[in-house]
């Protein structure tokens, strides 16, 4: 199951064309005394020095994002860069110091407590780094818990819980307690629990960081498989760039609380906005990220022996292009030829030389 699952072709997933599910504008989270007043009393955003001088700590600074329906949106950054804080602002687990957050066009920050509880009960699910399972409940009860706080009838909630437990592949362990499960299994419970209410918006804060590398890869595949079925809007936090590339439709890179670049993995690799982003992407296997469309050049020959789709990754077409020994056509979704891909370009991408170009 591990390696066979791949993302669907880009053409089906032009995410930015879809409606915006969750968006935030100029969100700040400043820790410290009287942080709100500090932000209110100024016309221009404060600089890093001004914040530090005031004895405050800006964990999230001036972040604006649009997250589209059905997209896997990854927030990525080193430890302490403010990813969790941003996620907690987006889910309003903490109040942002400034800015606005729109869920389906409604201002989430204006919702009162009852409304917020309602939104969380029906629209949001969250998976936690350390699983956050309730130790006194069985797997089944844990998964059914979000439904039971909504007073869903017992038969119905148990049935639904069994469904999602089945979905994450834990059938047979319903009566176990969390302590009796391995880390990977516990996180499957966490995932099942967050899916029990069938949320539209799914928050995951480093869900696989506590797992060892092999299990982590397995869980990533599992997540992709689930997403192919469920098509949720996902906000996924990680500090592992490989994980980000593997899962993401789009990635936002954070540093010191600010988002310094947002884009598809390919955009980040081919056009890093800053030295910092370039540093992150240096060790990435480019062939897995760069698509034929980015590596192609304008067509020169009139006739091609074979063709590849523009959105395929170089890794997927390498054998075909290099084996043929001749340039191949690159075709758009409608079948028209938009350029050609030479074996040299493929080789260059494979050995990562293109970075120096």
């Amino acid at each position, binding site marked *: 199951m591990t390696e066979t699952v791949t993302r669907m072709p880009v053409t089906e997933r032009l995410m930015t064309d879809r409606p915006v599910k969750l968006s935030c504008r100029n969100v700040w989270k400043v820790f410290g005394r009287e942080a709100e007043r500090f932000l209110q009393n100024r016309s221009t955003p404060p600089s890093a020095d001004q914040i530090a001088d005031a004895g405050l700590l800006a964990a999230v600074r001036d972040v604006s994002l649009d997250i589209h329906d059905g997209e896997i949106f990854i927030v990525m950054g080193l430890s302490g860069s403010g990813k969790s804080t941003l996620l907690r602002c987006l889910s309003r*687990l903490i109040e942002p110091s400034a800015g606005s957050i729109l869920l389906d066009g409604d201002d989430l920050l204006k919702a009162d407590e009852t409304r917020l509880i309602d939104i969380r*009960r029906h629209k949001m699910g*969250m998976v*936690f780094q*350390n699983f956050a399972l309730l*130790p006194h409940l069985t797997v089944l009860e844990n998964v059914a*818990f*979000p439904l039971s706080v909504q007073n869903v009838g017992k038969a119905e909630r148990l049935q639904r819980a069994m469904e999602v437990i089945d979905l994450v592949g834990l059938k047979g362990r319903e009566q176990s*307690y969390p302590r009796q499960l391995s880390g990977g299994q516990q996180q499957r419970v966490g995932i099942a629990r967050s899916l029990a209410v069938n949320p539209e918006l799914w928050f995951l804060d480093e869900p696989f960081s506590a797992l060892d590398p092999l299990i982590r890869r397995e869980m990533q595949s599992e997540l992709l498989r689930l997403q192919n079925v469920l098509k949720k809007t996902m906000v996924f936090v990680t500090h592992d760039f490989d994980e980000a590339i593997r899962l993401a439709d789009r990635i936002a890179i954070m540093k010191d609380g600010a988002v310094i670049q947002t884009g598809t993995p390919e955009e980040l690799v081919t056009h890093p906005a800053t030295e910092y982003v370039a540093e992150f992407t240096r060790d990435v296997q480019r062939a897995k990220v760069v698509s034929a469309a980015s590596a192609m050049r304008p067509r020169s020959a009139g006739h091609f022996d074979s063709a590849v789709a523009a959105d395929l990754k170089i890794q997927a077409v390498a054998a075909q292009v290099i084996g043929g020994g001749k340039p191949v056509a690159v075709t758009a979704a409608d079948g028209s030829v938009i350029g050609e891909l030479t074996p040299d370009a493929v080789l260059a991408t494979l050995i990562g030389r293109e970075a120096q170009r």
Partner: protein
Amino acid sequence: MAVLDQTAPASALRWRNWRWSLAWIALLLVAIALISLPSLAPWAIDYPKQWIIPLAAELKALMKWVVKNFSIVTRAIASMLQLPLDLALGLLAKGFTIGNGAEALHLPRLSWLGLVVAFTLLGRLLGGGRIALIACICFSYIALFGQWDSAMLTLASIAICVPFAVLLGLGFGILAYHSPKFDTYAIRPMLDLMQTVPAFAYLVPVLLLFGFGPVSAMIATIIFAMPPMVRATALALRQVPEDIQDFASMAGCTRRQRLWRVMIPTARPLLMVGVNQVIMMTLNMVIIASMIGAGGLGYDVLLALRSLDIGRALEAGLAIVALAIALDRLSQAAADQGPLDPTAPARRHRYALVALAVLIVTTLGGLVWPWLASLPKDMTLTTGPIWSEMIAWINVNFFDAIDATRTWLLLHLLNPVKQFLLKTPWIVLVAALGLLGLYLGGIRRKQGWHLAILAMLLFAFSAVVGLWEKAMITVYLCGISAIFACLIGIPLGVLGGRRALANRILGIVVDTLQTLPSFVYLIPVVMLFRVGDVTAMIAIVFFAVAPAIRYTSHGIRQVPAHLTEAATAMGCTRRQLLWRVQLPLALPEILLGINQTILLALSMLVITALVGTRDLGQEVYIALTKADPGRGIVAGLAIAFIGITADRLMSAWARRLRQGMGLAAAETGAANH
């Protein structure tokens, strides 16, 4: 400050030490001057009578007013407790009588045999064979030694007190968790006071408000036993992982669901530790509470002690111990039990059914065979006469030796210290405490000045309310006992810290010492040393030695292994390792142990009033027998203030040492003790 001290040039350091010596010498000179020239300032030597504030009388008047105007409230509370108590008493001790006159129907109480079986089953369910055996032995002991009737009276009141104390504690703990302000300004000071004011002191107002009887005793017990539950609840809720709290929000829990369905179940293990503590505190109160009308084992001990019937006192005392051990182990097993076993509910039902069946059969059987209802006298054992004879024998054969020890201690140790404290001018002692506060708290820090002023005010309180002499006797008795406890406890702790086997044995000893209700210590000592200060001192030493052992051995064991290894690698002998590395590093922890020892000594002090000491404890005891709330509260406060002063000074000392060692970061961890 600590950093400054370390970097200061050597000359400055020497000068600073000099200054402290000068200050102490100056104080000594003042003392000598005051004593040798008594006419110079007589008010500074003995606190003048006309300056005494009659706080006790005013409190008494206040209490009278409260009693007169709030009797509705007190009666409501009393009846709220009376009902469940009657039920428990009926079940366990007295049976029920329905109707009256000749045709009244009498339902029997539960059979002793049935209860022994039921508790054994409970032990097996909660903790397996070992706990079952302990429960079986303890309850059989109570039955066979003829203590059953009294023990069931005691158990009935415990069975009602514990749930009330737990629920109240839970409530206050939740409040403290939700409102940190309320916690710092209301709950924490209240708990500090409740833990330092001796339990005796609140017997008096309770007695006045609720009258003499079991209900009063229960109320006093509940007040006494609640604090650990409050602390455990607040702590347990604060320790729930943030992830889980976030999950509660994201699952869309309402506030109530969040508390009852997420927070409290997650915090359960720590909460159960609190419950265990409540049970132990309740048992600790058994004898004290019998002074205001609780019957049962406590009352038996009290009566026997008063008539110096050692054998009977010991038997009833041992029955309390048996009850304490059984309940302690059962509740600990319940606390340790996770919800791991999926078959648990089914198993619980099976056990409950069996226990119920046994109870019904034996109880009904009791109607036919009376020995099932209560063990007849000729089937019970008694060791009372044996104990009495043994004591008589010891007294006949060793009277001279014991008496010589007693006299020697009195003449060469106790009396001189007592005289010293009584003769020193009060103002000098108060000033000395202030100076100590400044020295330990740091003269350049605000806290240092706060500490000095607090220590002086709290200590002077005794003088102002006219209890100076009794307070000094308290300080002397408690101080000497604490010193002895440390002299015994710290070396034992060192041994335990360095040798695994010793540690295991000491662990058992300390556990047992802490399970025993404080009164029990008094019994054997009274037998040998009769009443007086020496008896009190020895009993206090036994009672208070446990924390000195426990903290020392923990402190030594937590010295990081890489440090001891480094020292060994440098060629330290074992002795050098102890004195140069382990002891200095464990010192802050040891100080915490000493601190606890002092507090325990103070709380035991009041109980030793029964054997005729002349300190503040006696004052409280007298107030109790005379039902004088003002006197009781004032003397209780004076004891509490001595305790708080000692506590703050020791904590400051520990902090100072820790900073000196650059371990200031460890402070937060240690503060949790």
